[in-house]
Structures are given as C-alpha cells and as structure tokens.
C-alpha cells in the first residue's frame, strides 16, 4: 500500500483555503483576501493517520481552471499532467458555505479531470448564524463525490477531512455534470483525436492554447479539429451555462439560505465603506493612521537598535586586539549592517497593516473606489495594491501586480511601482533631512523635517502616476481591458496569519538586504583601507612632510593623514574618476562612492557613508560624534564650502526618489515581465529621470 498521498488543495479566493492548509499541515502560512495572494506554490506534509502521510500542495486561489491569469496557469500545469511528479492522487476542493454556488463551478471542472475529489465546505460553523441549511447526503449523491463540512478557524471537521483523504481510492472519477452535452457532436470528434486522454484536458489544451506532454493546439488541429475564436468562446459559454444549470437545480434541492441574514452585515458595511464621500474619507484616514503608526510606533525600537549598534562598535574596539580584523568588524561590517537594522520596525509595521487590510476584505473596496481615479494614468484600481505595498518594498509590490489581468495595466504598474517610497529610501531621507532641513516648526505646529518627508512620499506617488501617464503612450495594448473583481465578505483578520505574514516578509527583506550589505561593507571597507602605489603606502611621511613647521596638533595631523589615505585608496580613485559626472548634481567623490555602491540597494548609501567616514577618521573612537556630525563638517577642498547644503542634500534626495537603486527590483522586474527589454528600459528611464531631476534641483537651488 502506498503510504504517501499527493494532495492538491484548490479553491476560490477568500474561502479560507490557506487556513485549511494550515489546519492540515500545521505549517504556518497566510490566508489571502485578495485574489492570488498565495503567489508561490506552497506545500507541506500532513500526518493523516499513523501510517499515512500526505504531501499537500496549496494551489493559488482561482475561480476556474480556465487560465485567464498567470496564477491559474500554475494550477493547470499540475492538474493536467499525470507525469508531473506532484500530480495529485486526490484533489480537495475547498468551498465557502456562503458562496457555494460559485464555488461549485470550480468543483464541477475539477471533477471532469478524472482525479478523485473531495469537497470540503469551509466555514460550516456559520450556518446557523447565516440561516443556512444543507442536505449533505443528497449533495454527495448528486455530485458523485465525498463532502465534508469543516471549519478551519474553529478546527472542526479536520479529522473527518483527513479520513476522507485517506479513502480517496473509493471515490468515483466520473464527472458530476456532463458539460460536453452542451455540444456533443464537437466533443465527440475532439475525443477521437487522442482517445486515451480525457476530453476535458483536450478541450483545455485546445481552447487555452496549452502544451502538455506531446499534445498542443496544433497537434489537435492536425487531427481535424478547426474552430474559430468566437466558436471557442461560444462553447465555453455553453459549458458554463450547462454547469450552472446543474448547480442551480442541485442547490434548489439541498441548500436553503435566508438571504436577509446572510448579506446584512456586508451591505451595511459597504454602504459606508464604498460611499461617495465617506469611502474616500475612511480610506485616507486609514492611510494616514498607517503612516502615522509607522513613524510613531517605530521611533522607540529604532533608537534602541541604533544605540545598540553604536555601542557594539565601541565595545569591539575595547575588547579586541587592535588590528585589521578589529577594524574590519568594528568599522566595516557593524556600521554597514547597523545602517539598515533600525528600519526593521517600520518595515514590519507596514507589512502588518497591508496584511490586515487584505485579510479583512477591505482591499477589494479600495480597488473599487480607486479604479476610476487610476484609469487616466493607464492604471487600474488593482494597481493601488502594488502602489501601496511599494511603500514598504517594491519586491512584494511588483509580485502583487500579478492579479491585474490586463497586460498593459500590469506592465505599467510594474514599471512605475519602484517610484513609490519604499522603506529602503527612509534611511537616506532621514539622514539627509536631519542634515539639511532645519528643525523648526512651520506656523508653530508643523515640523519642517516631517513635512519634507511627507512631501517626498507624495513625490514618489506622483512620479509613479506621471510616469505611468507618459509610458502608456509607448506601450501597445494587445488585449482589451477588462475588470471583474469579487467583493469578498468582511472577515475578522486572523491574528496568527497577520503575524506570520509580517514575520515572513520582514525576514525575507532583512536577510535579502542584509546579505548584500554585509558583503558590500567588507568590500568598501577593504577598498577604503587599501590603496595602490607609494602615495597610499607612504601617506604618513608625505603628509608629515607637508605640514612640517606648521603648528598642527597631533590630532589634526592624524586626520590629515587619514584624509590623504582615503583620497589615494582604491575607493578614492574610483570616486574621483566619476566626480565630473556627478559634480553638476552637487556631489563630491565620497558621495559618488556611496551612490555607486548603493546601486545594489538604496539603504547601502548610509552604510557606505558610515564606513567611508569611519575610515576617514582613522578608526579611533569618535570624538567627532555621529556620522551626521561628520557629514555636516565635510567641505569642498578647493572652496571650503560645505558639501552638504540644502541644494546638494535635496538633489540627493530627489536622485534617490527617482533612481532605480535596487538590484533586487531589477531582478524581480525581469522575472515578472519575462522581458529584458522592459527591465532595461525601466532601469534607464528611472536613472535618467533621476539624474536630470537631481541636476535641476541642485542648479536651481544653488
């Protein structure tokens, strides 16, 4: 007997499928209230009994197995190919007791695949409350399948579901409804093309232009099947109508629902949340609350983490033997990593809010409210989700653009999402604002520094909109746009799911960014602490010679030596060679180094400056205080004017607002667009835009 069973879990979005998955496997993953949030194929092991183990795959939520979106294609690849190593022995279709009619459409499709299927009806605990009654016995008979009532949230019916999975060999593999009867002549002919294959599979390959094994659309056409596109659509419609006829007749017999009780809360809540005025007021109030929370809640842990890394550096200097290794750790790695760590609380809080908004079902209402506003820019209401998520990190944001069906709207969203103010820009903004914007209050109440930060958030959002508006003229639309979204029931977010989403996304961000910063800070420290030729080697003698006879203190002389060394180090040479290009923007060669190294990731900017200025002060304990104080003391060697002025500071911020300074985003754009052309286009478009805007800012304010 086979003791490992392959199980595929499938269901409409918002039926609590991921909660069922968690209940089966014990693995912690999130449920999504937004179509297609379960982006990757997630799997886990479930112990069904003492000697039976199930490998469960949690497939992305889908309304049908017609491949109208990318996520749904993932589903098809698995379900149609018996050679696939994860081809399921049994499919569990998760349905929601309140949306049984629509959920059963997917079930009847799955049932046609010839794979044993179990129908798990979730949220059964709500039946009394919602005035629903269901004749399970009769439903099983009519659907020709096994039906289990469960409540994943309350852990009810899970053991029954496990037992039902173990029993999979006893279930019929016949369809519950013969949808091919809608056009029996055609489907009869189709069946003859590959007599051993299920008709439904052949039909899907033909109508969706798929390729599974050696069968594809043209190989079927070669065997004498010819349909125009409109005939294909008409058949799809006929089959869908046939299925719904069956489902409606069935539900009339087995399902009773008191509609008033069922839709009351939803319609009451929607009357306010999608209201002409209150809808927007509430949306903007929520956004304001989110961003307020990000800044106020995170300030205490931020200071705490910041202080920790500062004292860590000092402590290393105290306890370790002076030498290259100590310098590497205390002046290279720790300041580099410490530059990004304080931003963890902000990132975590933003991810938490996005998870809550999605889980409650509110995000779909935002899509509804914003669609008309986004359309003039070539975007859709669905672009709002990536654009909001982009304020945390462009990487998950670009991935969430997957559920935009229209290819043009999707591409535009991907191209402009990196303009929104991701959390990696926050360290750059905060240090520059502190440096060049006076800490005063406008009209005695509005802090000028906070206002500047807010304006930069707005600038990022506007840049995304304007960018989309410009780019929409350059992108051809191949498919007609359509917009069909479900407005799911409102639900209380499940605390465990929110926390685990927050944790997973933050962890991915920190580890992803941390790895890059770790290696870069080693490289930058090395390039800054070493140099070619005699100038670097003999820095001490040369500088001492220069200042001979002048009255300089030992400390000043040391600083001059350190400065001379940095200038003649490898990194100094690189920075100096690009100075002509960045001088019109108001940057010196040290900033140039930071800009170049932060192409990998924006937050590296601060870490690099910290490393550079630490090297510059010969690594001794800081009498000059923080990086900020050192930066503000920087002067141009020829004019002795300050390097960081209002003009150069804002120019840098503008540059970071627009430039594509993130290799991870470049990689994700490539993966999601499957096109180097658009990836490179985005990179050049953003960098050129940033360069020009920064130059204008500097030249205008200078």
């Amino acid at each position, binding site marked *: 007997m086979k003791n490992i069973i392959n199980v595929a879990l499938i269901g409409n979005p918002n039926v609590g499928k991921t909660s069922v998955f968690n209940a089966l496997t014990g693995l912690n993953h999130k449920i999504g209230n937004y179509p297609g949030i379960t982006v990757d194929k997630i799997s886990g092991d479930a112990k069904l009994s003492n000697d039976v183990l199930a490998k469960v795959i949690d497939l992305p939520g889908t*309304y*049908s197995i*017609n491949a*109208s979106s990318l996520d749904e294609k993932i589903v098809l690849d698995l379900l149609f190919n018996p050679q696939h190593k994860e081809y399921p022995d049994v499919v569990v279709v998760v349905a929601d007791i*309140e*949306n*049984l*009619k*629509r959920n059963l*459409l997917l079930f009847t499709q799955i049932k046609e695949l010839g794979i044993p299927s179990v129908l798990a009806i979730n949220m059964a605990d709500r039946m009394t409350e919602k005035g629903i009654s269901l004749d399970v016995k009769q439903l099983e008979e009519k659907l020709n399948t096994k039906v289990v009532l469960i409540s994943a949230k309350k852990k009810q019916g899970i053991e029954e579901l496990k037992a039902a999975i173990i029993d999979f060999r006893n279930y019929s593999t016949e369809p519950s409804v013969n949808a091919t009867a809608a056009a029996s002549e055609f489907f009869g002919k189709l069946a003859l093309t590959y007599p051993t294959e299920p008709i439904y599979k052949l039909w899907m390959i033909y109508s969706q232009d798929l390729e599974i094994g050696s069968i594809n659309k043209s190989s079927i056409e070669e065997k004498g099947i010819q349909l125009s596109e*409109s005939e294909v*659509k*008409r058949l*799809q*419609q006929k089959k*869908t*109508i046939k299925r*719904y006829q069956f489902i409606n007749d069935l539900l009339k017999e087995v399902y009773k629902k008191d509609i008033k009780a069922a*839709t009351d809360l*939803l*319609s009451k809540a*929607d*009357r306010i949340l*999608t*209201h*002409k*005025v209150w*809808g*927007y007021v509430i949306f903007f109030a929520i956004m304001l609350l989110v961003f307020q929370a990000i800044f106020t809640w995170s300030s205490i842990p931020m200071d705490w983490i910041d202080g920790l890394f500062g004292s860590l550096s000092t402590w290393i200097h105290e306890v370790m033997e002076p030498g290259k290794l100590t310098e590497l750790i205390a002046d290279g790695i720790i300041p580099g990593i410490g530059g990004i760590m304080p931003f963890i609380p902000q990132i975590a809080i933003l991810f938490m809010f996005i998870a809550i908004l999605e889980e409650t079902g509110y995000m*779909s209402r935002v*899509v*509804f*409210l914003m*669609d*008309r*506003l986004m359309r003039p820019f070539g975007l859709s*209401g669905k672009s709002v989700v990536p654009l909001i998520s982009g304020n945390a990190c462009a990487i998950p944001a670009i991935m969430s653009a997957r559920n935009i*069906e229209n290819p043009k709207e999707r591409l535009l969203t991907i191209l402009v999402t990196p303009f929104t103010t991701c959390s990696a820009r926050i360290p750059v903004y905060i240090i520059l604002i502190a440096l060049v914007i006076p800490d005063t209050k406008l009209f005695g109440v509005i802090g000028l520094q906070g206002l500047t930060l807010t304006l930069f958030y707005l600038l990022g959002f506007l840049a995304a909109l304007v960018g989309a508006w410009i780019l929409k003229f350059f992108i051809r639309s191949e498919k*007609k746009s*359509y*917009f*069909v*979204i*479900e*407005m*799911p029931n409102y639900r209380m977010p499940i605390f465990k799911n929110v926390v685990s989403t927050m944790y997973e996304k933050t962890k991915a961000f920190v580890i992803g960014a941390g790895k890059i910063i770790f290696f870069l800070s080693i490289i930058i420290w090395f390039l800054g602490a070493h140099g070619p030729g005699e100038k670097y080697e003999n820095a001490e003698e040369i500088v001492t010679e220069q200042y001979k006879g002048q009255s300089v203190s030992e400390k000043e002389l040391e600083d001059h030596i350190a400065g001379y060394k940095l200038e003649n180090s490898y990194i100094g040479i690189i920075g100096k060679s690009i100075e002509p290009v960045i001088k019109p923007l108001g940057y010196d060669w040290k900033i140039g180094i930071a800009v170049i190294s932060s192409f990998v990731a924006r937050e590296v900017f601060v870490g690099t400056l910290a490393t550079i200025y630490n090297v510059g002060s010969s690594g001794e304990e800081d009498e000059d205080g923080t990086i900020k104080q050192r930066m503000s003391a920087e002067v141009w060697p020829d004019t002795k004017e300050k390097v960081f002025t209002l003009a150069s500071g804002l120019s840098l911020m503008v540059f970071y607002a627009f430039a594509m300074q993130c290799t991870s985003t470049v990689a994700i754009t490539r993966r999601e667009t499957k096109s180097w052309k658009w990836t490179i286009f985005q990179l050049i478009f953003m960098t050129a835009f940033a360069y020009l805007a920064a130059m204008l800012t500097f030249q205008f304010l200078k």
Partner: protein
Amino acid sequence: MNTTLDLLEKNTKGIIADYDMQKVPLKLLEMGCLPGNEVVLLEVAPLGDPIYLYVNDTHLSIRKELAKEILVNVE
C-alpha cells in the same frame, strides 16, 4: 423593458437577457453573469464608475464599459 446593465439605477434589479460573447470575458460568466440570472446594482463608485453588483450569490465589481455590453430586462 430592455436596457443595458450600466443604466440600471442604484438598488434596482434586472434579469440578464443577452450579450455578445466576444465582448464579455469568460471570467464574468464564471462569476455567474449568465442569461436568466437576476442582477442587483448595489452601488456606483464615487466617480460614476465602476459599479458594484450582486449576482449569482456573488458580490462583484465591473466597469461600465463592460456593463454596457450586457442587456438586462427590468420589470
């Protein structure tokens, strides 16, 4: 009386009569927008578009350009 779905007034019902399959995505059908089904227009977004429907036990939102393609019977 025959009209198109986009012209339905708020909180009124209609029965879906017909539409041109070429202009309506499969997903809408699968959501249950099929001839013979009752549809209620629940809400219109603040700027007049999209619209918010109840059909086939499902709450969904579509744009007016799509709603225009769908003929409905109103009593």
